[in-house]
């Protein structure tokens, strides 16, 4: 990649790799994946997809499973990481997992091994006794080209049983996120740093940003690390509103008690964002900035009339996404702090995701308040997410026998018609999703 993260003058600090301190170079603009073999020699984290899809480059970084292609190495001063090689030397409590995965023909070429090992490790830490479905879900989106996956699933299933019986199952301790010493700790400090470096990108989880920058021709954009700002990691209910900090990962949102009780469908959708690595590191803020046309959050935040809080301003989600749609290639001027979602709604989020761990083709959120007022927002159908003008009428029409053309005419938005899906198909899916909303039409 061609980005530089700033570090204090002088040395770039050290990164602990498989128990050994390795010096970092100042202003190193490589990803962790690029850096590793050059700095420490061949490791089992491997480059395969160039797009943060497959997981072959996975490592564990300060306790969090990550795809090393999404991490700028310059942000890692003081961090501790391990590749699969470390566990091959010394598996500790994970010995049964290592052993099971080393079984005959569980893998063939083994190029993908890290993807599945670290996903399984993360799963077993959360869910010590996973069912087959849990393991499949943890492996969603990860790629192996040689096997049929099921032998890997079976191996993890067997290891989980063995580990559950052992007294020292390795779950419990939650990783503490670590931040470079020089990274700002407050919003004010971050904003001041940004002023000093116009055009810099905010670096949170890096899930979209780092692969994006790596492929862009843009010369050396600089990165401002914001993972150290505690305020951005907050989730709390204030009166009848839920605040979710922009720095919260999808995994945190999915597991958060306040979210689950106030807006269970938000937890549900966060739990389906990307794959297990994306959920461990990718943040709400990152999703808000990249604002994919068919992303998971836009319809939810638009239907629930959420506010987007940025440093120095408050915007309706509706306006935020409209703005972002225009400026997707540019970082937002201000630091995004989080979203504030009214909780008085009964909300239902419905998505059609033909490929697990990949973006939904179309998603719909319906939100109804006690007075019966209904709002519906749609993503993935048109060129950008939108709020439906007359939700009650549309819902009734979708449930009735209104022909597709007339249903389409009720929406002000033309369906996208591209190689991925025809407009007619998107409309049919939208109709399905609308029908699944548990509200009675007007």
């Amino acid at each position, binding site marked *: 990649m061609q980005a530089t993260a700033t570090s204090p003058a002088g040395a770039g600090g050290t990164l602990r790799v498989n128990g050994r301190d390795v010096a970092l170079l100042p202003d190193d603009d490589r990803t962790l994946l690029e850096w590793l*073999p050059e700095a420490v*020699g*061949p490791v089992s984290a*491997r*480059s*395969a*997809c*160039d*797009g943060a*899809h*497959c997981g*072959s480059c996975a490592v564990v970084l300060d306790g969090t499973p990550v795809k090393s292609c999404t991490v700028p190495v310059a942000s890692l001063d003081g961090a501790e990481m391990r590749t699969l090689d470390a566990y091959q030397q010394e598996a500790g409590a994970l010995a049964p997992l290592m052993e099971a995965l080393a*079984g*005959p*023909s569980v893998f*063939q*070429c*083994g*190029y*993908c091994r890290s993807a599945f090992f670290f996903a399984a490790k993360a799963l077993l830490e959360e869910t010590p006794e996973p069912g087959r479905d849990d393991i*499949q879900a943890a*492996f*969603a*989106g*990860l*790629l*192996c*080209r*040689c*096997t*049929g*996956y*099921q*032998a*890997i*699933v079976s191996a993890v299933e067997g290891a989980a049983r063995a580990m559950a019986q052992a007294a020292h199952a390795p779950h419990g301790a939650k990783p503490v996120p670590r931040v470079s010493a020089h990274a700002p700790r407050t919003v004010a400090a971050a904003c001041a740093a940004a002023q000093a470096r116009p055009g810099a990108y905010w670096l949170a989880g890096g899930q979209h940003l780092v692969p994006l920058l790596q492929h862009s*021709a843009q010369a050396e954009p600089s990165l401002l690390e914001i993972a150290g700002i505690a305020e951005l990691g907050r989730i709390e209910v204030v009166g009848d509103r839920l605040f979710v900090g922009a720095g919260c990962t999808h995994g945190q949102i999915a597991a958060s008690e306040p979210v689950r009780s106030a807006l269970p469908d938000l937890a549900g959708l966060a739990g389906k964002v990307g794959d297990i690595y994306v959920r461990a590191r990718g943040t709400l803020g990152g999703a808000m900035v990249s604002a994919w046309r068919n992303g998971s959050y836009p319809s939810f935040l638009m239907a629930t009339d959420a506010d987007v809080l940025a440093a120095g301003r408050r915007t309706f989600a509706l306006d935020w996404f409209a703005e972002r749609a225009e400026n997707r290639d540019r970082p937002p001027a201000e630091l995004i702090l989080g979203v504030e979602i009214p909780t008085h709604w009964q909300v239902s989020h419905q998505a*059609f995701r*033909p*490929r*697990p*761990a*990949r973006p939904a083709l179309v998603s719909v959120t319906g939100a109804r308040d006690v007075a019966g007022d209904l709002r519906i927002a749609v993503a993935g159908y048109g060129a950008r997410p939108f709020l439906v003008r007359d939700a009650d009428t549309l819902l009734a029409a979708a449930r009735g026998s209104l022909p597709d053309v007339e249903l389409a005419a009720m929406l002000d938005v033309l369906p996208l018609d591209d*190689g*991925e*899906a*025809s407009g*007619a*198909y998107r409309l*049919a*899916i939208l109709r*399905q999703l609308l029908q699944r909303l548990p509200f009675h039409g007007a």
Partner: protein
Amino acid sequence: MSAAAPRSAALPDALPWLADAYEGRCFTADVNPPGAVHVAFVRSPYAHAEIVAIEAPAPADVLGFWTARDLPSHAPIPCIVPIVNRDGTDRADPPHVLMAASRCRHEGEIVAMVAARTQRAANRAAAAVRVTYRVLPAVTDGAAAVEAGAPELWDEAPGNVCFDWELGDAAARDAVLRGAAHVVRRRLRNNRLVIAPLETRSAIAAPVDGTDGFVLVTATQGANWSRDIIARDVLGWDPGRLEVVTPLVGGSFGCKIFVYPEQVLVLMASAALNAAVKWVSTRKEAFLTDVQGRDNHTDATLALDADGRILAITTDTIANLGAHLSNYGPFSSTNCGTPLLCGIYDVGLVHARVRGVFTNTTPMDSYRGAGRPEAHYVLERMIDEAAHELGLDPLALRLRNALDETQLPAVTATGIRLDSGMFRANIRRAQEEADYAGFAHRRAASAAKGLMRGIGMANFLETNGGFALAKIMERHNGSLPLETARIAFTGQGRVHLDIGTQGSGQDHRGAYADMLAARLGMSPEAIEVFQGRSDRLRQGTGTGGSKSMLSGSTAIIETAEAVIARARAWLASRTQRPEAEVVWEDGAFRLDGTPVPLMEAVRMAEFEAADGHPFDAQVTSTIRSGTFGNGCHVCEVEVDPATGMVRVDRYTAVSDFGTIIRMADVVSQQEGGITQGIGQALTEYCRYNADGTLATGDLAAYHLPQVSDIPQMKLVFQGTPCRTNTLGLKGCGEAGISASPPAVMNALHHALRGEVDGMIQMPATPQVVWAALHAEGRR
């Protein structure tokens, strides 16, 4: 029989950074020669364009820069497959050039190469090279390429036709079709597939100090073969000047068999700069330049008599070859695949016409199965279509036509000599294991959830052994396939086994060690297996066509016999008795009843020869008969009519692979192959933009199968040992992918019977299935 020591045993001494690659301990990209220069390629962003001008970068920014004009003299990369057209002429042979000189014929074709100190600097320099193009209209679909007015790629191939080939007798075909009670015709599409092993291609070339030789570290499926093509055929060198070392390979499935321009260009750069030069492909480059597979349009006809006996199958296929001829380019669609159009059935007549056509797409070549999956797809889909049209049960129609075990050995209409097989038994067993009896119940349960359920069957017959290829490679190694093994005793009870076959992820080495250990009466732990190094064996055919266990075992067994013969002679002379009194029995020699294990004799004879051990042996074996793995797959799918989503719910495969050496490996090969076939049937979709560029050029847009696409499979093995090889084994690596696409698609059509008009072509993505269910006038 000679046990010559490896030619350049000193290679790793000369190049210490080579050690890990040499021992097969790492992947190519892990190899980092100190001070290596990196190259990057300037590639055409257009599918079809003339190069108007290329602006060289400032010399200060690069270590080297080459366009087609700057390359030393060389020949194009050869296509080794001759094809004689129906009219007796030879196929067109346009040159597979290393770089486009004046015209680019597919997106990603190389226009220039730059060298720099780091990969990043090389990439940047390549991105900065300014090339002026004049864009030409492009054609990407094979059927469109033969239409009048289509853009043409090569003067040598008017109408884009490279060859127009046929198998069988057209007059006999017409007579059978005229007399048949039923003639069923369909057009079938075998979709283009991106092979996409997770490890991308790469190459590292370096001069060997003090010699005029070079070493090339690169993924291949046969180091010797690649070496010969690159050194002898393209560079015009004495092949001895080049050693090819293939370390671990992260999957290949066919695509790393072939010689690519980058491997040669990296060598040229290394020679020009007198330095080690490294290149590792990005995924984007892989999507644009690794050979791709399948991509046929086939008009198929099945002729049946009044009793539902298949009289003939005939096909008229347009096979997309891409923009250039890859090494085996025309092979899959012709000699490799079409002889299997009769499958396991007693079919009176086969006729196939194949037109190979050029398009502005990535060159095509053998992807796992190489034409056999294409043939099985046509045949097994046609049987279901015929059953439907005739109102017959597809399973019964298969049973009626399958060759009976009592008819074996038999020769098929296409000349294949089958020694053994369990064709009908496979079908019956599959019927039972897949629980056909319970299907109606399961279908009702699906219907209650608003889902449609279907069950589909497909049989397969494999022809493994490399015979079709050996025949056309006559020029290189005689008309029968060869394979070489070398056994060396290296002291301290260790044995080195060199073998000319080459795994690319599948664990051949373990199976070989087991095999040899059993033959020599020793423990497999003492055996180290080497593969993928042209310097250690003079001959080696490599891997391809699911033949490694066959050819590898043949060579290993014959070499082990040579070792035992040498040891026996030595023991006899040492103990001064006739050789006949030295008996080899149960893994040990017997001298007057006293057992002497081979390794004991090895120890006794140590230090007797200055060079190596007196028992060392190397044998090049001839593979005289192929193997015919066979089996029957049953797939059950559930379709959501609202979204068009197809879920493979149950999958059963009954296989006859003869004697199985390592069950876990065979299971993994089966599952991996079936999985890739499910990907072809349901998820893998290569789409092009109107200008001919690839719209699905990354793993976000091109959907490889994920874990959720694949059910837990029921794999049943019932084998009749092959009668023509010592171990009784049969090839299995490509079997899964031959049967799974038709099994899935037959199940899908069964689920949708009566609900859609016409046929659904692969890949049956949700959108495709939904569109068929909601076509005008339906629903």
